[in-house]
């Protein structure tokens, strides 16, 4: 079990999880990137700025 960086919920990684894989937090639906596997570390997908009206 790993902690979701968005909501602190518990995210269970599949045993086969690989770096760069996307997993989804069941609690908050965030799509998380597996940035390391041993120990597992999850990161939020980078926010892309959208801009209107500059």
């Amino acid at each position, binding site marked *: 079990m790993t902690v979701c960086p*968005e*909501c*602190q*919920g518990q995210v269970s990684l599949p045993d086969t999880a690989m770096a760069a894989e996307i997993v989804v937090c069941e*609690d*908050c*639906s*965030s*799509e998380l990137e597996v940035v390391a596997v041993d120990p597992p570390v999850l990161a*939020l*997908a*980078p*926010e*892309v700025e*959208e801009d209107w009206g500059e």
Partner: protein
Amino acid sequence: MRVSVVGARGYVGGELVRLVLGHPELELVQATSRSCAGRPLGAVHPNLHHHSGVRFTAPEQLEPADAVLAAVPAGELAGVHQRLTSAARVVVDLSPDSRDPRTAPEPGYTLGMPELNRAALSGATRISVPGCMATAAVLALRPLVSAGLVDGEALVDARTGSSGAGTAPTTATHHPERQNALRVYRAAGHRHADEIARICGVRTRMTVTAVPLVRGVQAVVHARPPRPVSRAEVWDAYRACYAEEPFIRLVARRAGPHRLPDPQFLTGSNFADLGFDVDEDGARIVSVAALDNLMKGAAGGAVQSLNAASGIAERAGLEFPGLHAG
């Protein structure tokens, strides 16, 4: 369960009829309209063309049924109330009249919002469905209040489509005036603010803007927590209230064009989407609720409440999830 709809020519009434006709446990008995008695439903609601043999009947012809769903304009409930209670054991009112002690035709109406008082609704025979903006604002605000995250007042910025005004044409809803409107029609003060405050137990200030949509309400709630908060704390607050709710979805994506609740995906649906963001310094929570004013904000909420009151599965007849690119 045999159900009649009073005020069926209106926008809310039309949705009630549609929902009852598609509901596995409900059967439509009558649909009333004073002005269209005798005419087919499709003459007013083209989506219901050939959908049922039922025609509009005059409200005076109301026959016995198990429940009546009433969607008459504000101020008109008193005039028909006796007829409703005579016709059916269960009355669900969608007008503001039964929500306000000063206009309620009798005491004892139960708030028709299962997310707040599901237990009280079980077996209720007088149900009063809250307004669409109040529903959206309350759904967004209450978890914050419950978790002690609101210090002082909350600000409710509500945005609404044109169907919220009902079917009566006026200059304000005349298409050339309304199609491109960003109309702050209530900048300061609003009677809904009191309703929201009462339900949530926190003072609210409100601003309402009419936006270029037919359906949909979006409430953006700005609240200051007593101390800086993290996003995770706010998630906790929402989950504590809504983890098991059948019609609440938490939506707070960090990427893509659709990140926070947008009513465009809820047209025709009984879901309410909730999401939020927090300022970098943790000093402001911005909470967003979206729903379809005629569905979760009116007809859908009424059927959900009737389901809850009658021991019917709460999602029955309300499964439509909404559309993408609708």
